[in-house]
């Protein structure tokens, strides 16, 4: 039995139509459900960065990475090990909060988690929290008792710690890199 564990991949791609489905297809083909996916442009508007979190066994993920590198709109692929990367996610939670004591309690929880309250109505409070998944999960657990009306997560975004970037080709040489990819 292969052991599944969570992997975070960062993929630099050309910002054009159809790239996302090409990338996601490689995961679905293996029967891997993408747990979270965040896409946005980078400092160069022609380039997007996709952060993917997926459960899979190590060898299969390695193979998917090699297949990703073969896609022409893909510039770079990197696996971000948790200990070597910083990871953040934005979570918006709309909580039922009508009675004043409930509202106070929700506000207190928000303060403890350094979440901000970004919308208020007579019946609800909406909190925004930035953190990794443990922080988001912990807050979610606490708020559950008050009644979560809606919750949305952006999906994890991550960068490698230190001065290196996804563009530093040679850094991964130990893993599998022979410089340029043949067309």
């Amino acid at each position, binding site marked *: 039995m292969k052991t599944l564990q969570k992997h975070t991949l960062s993929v630099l791609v050309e910002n054009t139509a159809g790239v996302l489905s090409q990338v996601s297809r490689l995961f679905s083909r293996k029967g891997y459900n993408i747990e979270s996916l965040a896409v946005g442009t980078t400092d160069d508007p022609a380039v997007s960065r996709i952060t993917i979190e997926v459960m899979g066994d190590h060898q299969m993920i390695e193979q998917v990475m090699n297949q990703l590198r073969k896609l022409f709109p893909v510039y770079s692929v990197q696996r971000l090990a948790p200990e070597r990367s910083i990871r953040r996610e934005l979570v918006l939670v709309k909580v039922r909060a009508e009675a004043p004591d409930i509202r106070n309690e929700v506000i207190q929880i928000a303060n403890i988690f350094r979440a901000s309250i970004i919308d208020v109505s007579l019946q609800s409070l909406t909190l925004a929290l930035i953190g990794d998944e443990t922080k988001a999960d912990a807050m979610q657990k606490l708020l559950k008792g008050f009644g979560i009306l809606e919750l949305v997560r952006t999906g994890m975004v991550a960068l490698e710690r230190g001065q290196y970037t996804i563009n530093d080709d040679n850094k991964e040489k130990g893993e599998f890199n022979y410089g*340029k990819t043949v067309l």
Partner: protein
Amino acid sequence: MMMKSAQVLMECLLEQGVDTVFGYPGGTILNIYDEFERSGYKDKIRHILTAHEQGASHAADGYARATGKVGVCFATSGPGATNLTTGIATAYMDSSPVIFITVNVAEPLIGRDSFQEVDITGISMPITKCNYLVRDAGQLADVMREAFAIARSGRPGPVLIDILKNVTYDSVEYTPLSVREHAKSGRLSAMLERRGRDLKAPDPDAGDIEKLLQMIEDARKPLVLVGGGVIRSRGAVPEFRAFIERLGAPVTSTIMGGGACPGNHPLFTGMIGMHGSHASNLATSECDLLLAIGCRFSDRVTCNPDSFARKARMVQIDIDRAEVDKNVATDHHIIGDARRVLELLNAKLPAHDYPEWKQWVFSHVEQEMPQDPNKLAPNEILETIQKLTAGDAIITTDVGQHQMWSAQYYHFSRPGQLITSGGFGTMGFGLGAAMGAKLGNPDTPVVLCTGDGCFRMNCNELATVQHYGVPVITVLFNNRTLGMVRQWQNLIYNKRFSQTDLDRGPDFIKLAAAYGIDGGRAATQKEFEAVFRKALASGKPWVIECAIDKDEMVHPMVSGGSPVTNFLLD
């Protein structure tokens, strides 16, 4: 100069030296077809109108495999495009460079489920190396140049270009550019620069080469396994032959590697895998070093990846790093073009010999079985073709028993001589492929080996070979059943022959006659030899129907999932 982009497309084909295109017209691709007449491109590019888009797709593929050039295929939108998909997947699985050009409905109609509209770029995503939807005439020349470069470089493969109909009518500035300049301009140069990609495989790592040389020194029982990568790599075959002469170890081959090692070479053990020879499969299990070159360890080769070559250190040489460790775990790998890797190895490899090991391996070569002179045995057909064409014929096949017999009994001696759907196993591939191969090699005899099941699928292309006078000799192994499936039913399904009986029409000789093609029947080796001689001398397309016993089987056989040495059938 300003011109309609349909004309730009033709000019781009001429830039690439394309002289033959296979295709089928239709509503959306009219502007492109109009250029053959309007601007006289029919004098520069020969268009072969097939009976069906699928036939065109296989013909372009066969042309590419037989010539080493990029094949080109045209089709219209919707059903025209979807009819290509089996052909695209066939080319993809066997790394054959083909450019498929389809034209979709016009921009205002896109995404409205318009007549004959289909998202072919979406459909073909998993079966192309790369594909494009051209929505802007200004991009067409650039896309065409990039597409050809991608199709033929590295690990070759099919590329699809879908163009919107309105784009084909738009006028645009076109500046001619020789192929040599392509990498320095436009999209292609941008891609090469910014994505760290290269048209040629990077030089293999020197340390990796050294390590392999040491592994060879340490080995006592090495075995070379050659795959289609050596066939696809330009100039690799001479280097490969020099390498095996120097190494002096037994050599086995996948079906796609057919022709890399001459079939009658004293080091050649025959094909490996499900229908591999005893010598090949036993050597695989006994060797202490398995040197795989351009092979992806498909399930038809390994049968059971966990037990495959268990005693060996495994080395994989491949241009595509996504192939390494995909199906079997290797101990060492070298990423690079087969020709270059072999060249570097040949420069340093001392001559070796493994007399005891070779003796052991070749002691397992099958004994020839006694043959009934009143019956026509499959090997006699192949041996006769071999004899009468002096081993020069290009053999194309369909899929099934006749395909395995062709791979086993014909001695291929050069790349591109065996054209078969090895990866995708496409029944109906052969006739189109034979037509493409013959048009690309007019001076070489081309023989299609097919079965009655396969031939029935796409025999409509008889109309095409007849019309264009393409002298393909069809050798039809007629056992009145789906032989390979029946073989499984015989051996594994307790002789329950569910839906494999093809005891029905047509009369294939009358069918050929209806297309204006001569034919003949053979039920013994003598008859076959006489008919084949006649066909060969005629210089015209021919159909030869061979009577094969219904229960004739492909020997040996290992069932899928078992170790390659567990022969279900000797």
